[in-house]
């Protein structure tokens, strides 16, 4: 496994890109640790697949370099980069058995047969398919096929990184849980460098140690799931992560207080810098308390989703979503209060002040 360095990488699909707009991927300059699990998260068209394809070698970036363990691989082919990839739709060799599917990459590399047998059996155990070894691969279920795709990467000892391109798209919800936790365990046990592309926040957050949130060809934040949840650097991250996303409302700052319409809210740290531009306050529904104290609101809708309720409230003209616990009552004269530790302040959509 390898460290991945992205050195000032940019990519445009059209020839002669001039302005920033022409780039599908704006400048990316990061270093990803050896053995790290990274997720590229964002809506379609954000550039996450472009970035993955640059790492896999399918796309040659317009600018910049890609390094694996300090070695420049920008001009190497996919084959020479020694990566493994799991695709959105399962790619298996229909006519082969499960065993032969796993042996295929090793046979292609001329590994001696006893060595192949040892590695394949080891991998079959890892992906829980040992009892299927001699079955034809075509008769398997989608989740088993995805495990074979993964297994063809795991079986090789020379793999620099394992790439995943929305691998759970065709898997039923229940199997998603099983596959995800197996993947997590494999990562914990063997420390592979993994890069996982998805638009699904739950998948990204649960899979990765570091989530790379992308928007409009740019990386807007790289952070642990906790950082992305507690301190979104950009209002987009606040919106995109969390379900429902962060409540964002225009405010004016007055010393240690924020003015929302006719109400005032205490800010966590009194020394909030006075930032220029459009000032907004962001707070996640999880940090809004619904009770008999605070700012009076009207309730527009209550969605009971089992383990908690999502209450859509209105504070003057501002819609504010609140998450309320399973057994908790909703008062007749509802008021909301903001938990100060959940408050973030944004100037022109970028977070200001604080840690």
């Amino acid at each position, binding site marked *: 496994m390898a460290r991945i360095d992205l050195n000032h990488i940019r990519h445009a699909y059209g020839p002669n890109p001039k302005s920033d707009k022409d780039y599908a991927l704006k400048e990316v300059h990061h270093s990803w640790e050896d053995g790290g699990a990274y997720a590229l998260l964002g809506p379609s068209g954000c550039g996450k697949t472009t970035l993955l394809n640059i790492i896999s070698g399918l796309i040659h970036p317009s600018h910049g370099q890609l390094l694996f363990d300090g070695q420049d691989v920008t001009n190497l082919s996919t084959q020479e980069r020694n990566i493994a990839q799991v695709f959105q739709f399962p790619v298996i060799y229909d006519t082969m058995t499960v065993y032969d599917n796993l042996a295929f990459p090793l046979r292609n590399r001329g590994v001696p047969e006893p060595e192949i047998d040892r590695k394949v059996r080891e991998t079959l155990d890892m992906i829980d398919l040992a009892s299927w070894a001699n079955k034809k691969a075509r008769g398997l279920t989608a989740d088993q096929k995805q495990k074979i795709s993964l297994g063809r990467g795991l079986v090789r000892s020379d793999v620099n990184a394992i790439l995943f391109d929305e691998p759970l798209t065709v898997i039923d919800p229940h199997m998603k849980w099983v596959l995800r*936790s197996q993947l997590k365990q494999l990562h914990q046990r063997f420390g592979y460098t993994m890069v996982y592309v998805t638009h699904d926040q739950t998948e990204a957050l649960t899979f990765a140690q570091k989530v790379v949130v992308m928007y409009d060809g740019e990386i807007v934040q790289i952070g642990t799931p*906790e950082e992305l949840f507690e301190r979104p650097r950009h209002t987009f991250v606040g919106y995109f992560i969390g379900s429902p996303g962060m409540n964002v409302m225009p405010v004016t700052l007055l010393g240690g207080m924020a003015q929302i319409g006719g109400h005032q809210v205490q800010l966590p740290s009194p020394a909030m810098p006075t930032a220029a531009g459009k000032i907004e306050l962001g707070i996640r529904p999880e940090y809004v308390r619904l009770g008999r104290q605070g700012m009076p609101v009207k309730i527009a809708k209550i*969605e009971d989703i089992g383990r908690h309720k999502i209450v859509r409230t209105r504070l003057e003209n501002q819609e504010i979503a609140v998450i309320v616990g399973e057994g908790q009552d909703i008062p007749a004269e509802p008021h909301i209060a903001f938990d100060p530790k959940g408050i973030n302040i944004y100037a022109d959509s970028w977070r200001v002040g604080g840690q």
Partner: protein
Amino acid sequence: MLELRNVSKVVGGKPHLSDISLTLEHATLNVLLGPTLSGKTSLMRIMAGLDVPTSGSVWFDGRDRTGVPVQKRSVAMVYQQFINYPAFTVYENIASPMRVAGADNATIDREVRKAAELLKLTPYLDRTPLNLSGGQQQRTALARAIVKNAKLVLLDEPLANLDYKLREELRQELPKIFAESGTIFVYATTEPHEALLLGGNTATLSEGRITQFGSTIDVFRKPDDLITAQTFADPPLNTIALAKFGKAFQLEGGVALPVPAHLAEFADGTYTIGFQPHHVNTARSTPDEIGLKATVTATEITGSESYVHLSFADARWTMLAHGIHIYTPDEEIDIFIDPRNLMIFDASGNSVTRRQKLAA
């Protein structure tokens, strides 16, 4: 009112649907929830009139409509794939069902603009579908279903091919859009979470059978049987087999527990207990909670919550805990479950707790 009476469908000797009876009222949102191949699409095709049931009948507003082809019914369908006329503009795509019905231009224009406004398509009316994003393409298909003003609207996993956040937004809008039309609205999905967010009623499907039908939150909270509880759980339902002898529960892993007071009257025998992942706690909050020791296999953190995968004897469980909990794999931890949150199923899978509540 759409009524299915003892509908079965056999294809090539294999039962796709078995003895389905279901009544759907006007102006309701009904979710068909079940895994792939559980019969959701087959059922919708019969509701639409695309297929004829092998046995049983389909009634609409008190008239037997079995065998009446789809063209003669008032039905609109939206599929997982974005199906639009590629050569038409968005405007013409939305207008197409009304053109077929022979509406006059003024009415068409009014209805199309209204639907476009509702689905936020107004700026794209002059574009063709291929120049739109996936979300906009699916909105176009939905708008077409709306202007058709059909009495039955069938949506077969309409959001499955969309981005997570787009799904969240459309899911919020959909019930509003159809709320006032008086339409019977049927929505198929594989995701329990989606059913809960949509609300309305839910029918859970498993292997071609409807296992339960009722208000969505009721089916979720009070499943009649084990299969329904398993179908309607995401993360998967935690289960374990146990035997009851007098005042003790004997669990699979050799652990004995005192029987909670409210369960004391059950007959001795073997049962399966099930409990939702969010009902597993890391700390005791009430004295009568059951405490167990389980081993951590993996932890997934979403930022606000942690999914902790546990093993207890031969069982694999998930705990959904608020806040961030970091455990090392193979660590043994204490977990607590409030006995009132336990669902108990007898040997044939029927819920005993539910029966008890009904009797009370």
